């Protein structure tokens, strides 16, 4: 059992900033992350040594990781949190080794920097090997999956698409298309609004430069992933803008529809929510006295927002405050709102799935079984939708978009864990 003053969950940009800020202000800090190393999704590092060179080019990421290392916070990777209580305890499992053990952490202050995950929408063929999330494919490439020479279509919606496409191109993939469902006029509106934030414009321009040969289609979406004859892999995708439809041969499809916040721990603790996001004040404090939240769980707002909010939360946990940071964070909220608006999902995406299209992948539940249900609970009880190991993390947001059902409250374990962790543990502390 580990006692700490500040416990940070998530070592992405927000978590790193929070941990460093708290540690630099004299607090004992422990950071838990469920990945193999710090960085979260947007700053995911390659795990194969030969591929690590690209890290060197990302200065903000390098600076942040160095800061984390220097500040004295203790980083514990490969830890998945499965239980938490606001009174001051979090339990996690260390999944790295063959023996999976529970570890208890007692905290005075908790900072939730759990980030976001991709939203997946079902469409014919989306369960084929060769179809990945957009960030998903990028993550797997960082984990050692070589894509050099592979034909890739990147599709869905959100700023993530360009970032992923650029990275994949740098990794040697032939990114033939980026297919963005948002209409051009909304994207132009977003770009125009970025005039207030030149840094983001430059980022966007860099991506466009990396993707010289890539066709960027707006107002378009993939409505089918077509299997090769063996049924085991992808051969092509069908792209449409509602009027024109064509088939594009490819090896891989990287498709994701923006992000949904990871708020399970906040929900389990009993934090108040504002819609699907954790409600926080200007110091990132949740409705629970000793619990803070920073970054995507409070609103999908991108890197800048995550860094600022993390810094504010870390300082607040250490009893410090910075008006200038708070002001800057407030300004960023505008950007987050504009992102939501620009990348709002179009109605056609609700009709992509056919009656036989699998909606719940864990339990193989097709659309036809689900659509006449009265709500999430009814669907779960009668079709098993949401009863699998992903605990509704993939099908939940899809079903919410398709039918407007909100998945019902979470319980521990927040992730599947070995039964042994619930049994009497040998006294070893």
């Amino acid at each position: 059992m580990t006692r700490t003053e500040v416990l940070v969950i998530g070592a992405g940009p927000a978590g790193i900033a929070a941990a460093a800020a708290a540690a630099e202000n004299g607090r004992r800090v422990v950071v838990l992350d469920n990945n193999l190393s710090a960085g979260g999704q947007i700053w995911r590092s390659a795990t194969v040594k030969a591929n690590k060179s690209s890290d060197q080019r990302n200065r903000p990421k390098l600076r942040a990781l160095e800061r984390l290392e220097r500040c004295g916070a203790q980083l514990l990777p490969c830890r998945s949190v499965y239980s938490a209580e606001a009174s001051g305890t979090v339990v996690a499992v260390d999944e790295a080794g063959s023996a999976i053990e529970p570890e208890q952490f007692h905290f005075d202050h908790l900072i939730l920097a759990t980030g976001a995950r991709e939203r997946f929408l079902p469409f014919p063929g989306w369960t084929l090997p060769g179809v990945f999330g957009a960030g998903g494919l990028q993550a797997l490439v960082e984990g050692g999956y070589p894509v050099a020479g592979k034909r890739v279509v990147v599709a869905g919606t959100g700023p993530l698409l360009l970032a992923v496409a650029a990275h994949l191109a740098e990794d040697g993939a032939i990114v033939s298309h980026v297919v963005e469902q948002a209409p051009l006029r909304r994207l132009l509106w977003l770009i125009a609004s970025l005039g207030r934030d030149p840094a983001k414009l430059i980022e966007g321009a860099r991506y466009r430069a990396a993707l010289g040969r890539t066709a960027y289609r707006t107002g378009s979406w993939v409505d089918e992933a077509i299997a090769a004859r063996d049924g085991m892999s992808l051969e092509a995708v069908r792209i449409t803008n509602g009027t024109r439809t064509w088939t594009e041969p490819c090896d891989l499809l990287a498709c994701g529809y923006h992000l949904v916040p990871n708020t399970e721990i906040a929900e389990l603790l009993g934090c108040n929510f504002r819609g699907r996001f954790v409600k926080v004040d200007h110091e990132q404090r949740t409705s629970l006295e000793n619990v803070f939240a920073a970054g995507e769980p409070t609103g999908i707002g991108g890197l800048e927002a995550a860094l600022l909010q993390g810094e504010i939360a870390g300082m607040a946990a250490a009893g410090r405050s910075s008006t200038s940071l708070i002001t800057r964070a407030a300004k960023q909220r505008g950007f987050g709102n504009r992102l939501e608006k620009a990348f709002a999902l179009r109605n056609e995406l609700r009709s992509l799935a056919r009656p036989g299209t699998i909606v719940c992948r864990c339990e193989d539940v097709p659309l036809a079984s689900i659509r006449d249900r009265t709500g999430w609970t009814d669907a779960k009880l009668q079709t098993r939708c949401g009863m699998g190991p992903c605990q509704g993390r993939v099908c939940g947001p899809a079903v919410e978009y398709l039918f407007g059902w909100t998945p019902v409250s979470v319980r521990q374990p927040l992730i599947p864990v070995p039964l042994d962790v619930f049994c009497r543990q040998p006294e070893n502390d």
Partner: protein
Amino acid sequence: MPDCLSVTINGAPRQVPRGTTVAAALLIAAQPSRLSVLGEPRAALCGMGICFECRATINGIQHRRSCQILCEQGMTIRTNR
């Protein structure tokens, strides 16, 4: 430390660069990580440990998320087929 290590995937030996995740190894070997309830081949989707499509039996333990686990020398990986 050598840059490559060997694992077995469904009994067949494979060489992978050190630092490769099990999910990536399965993708390189073009092996679906699992068969779904209705028998469809599935492979990793989210790459970040939430979708559970990348589950495989690693060193005898079932249902492990292979995208969160690095290959180790001599590791046995079995997919449910």
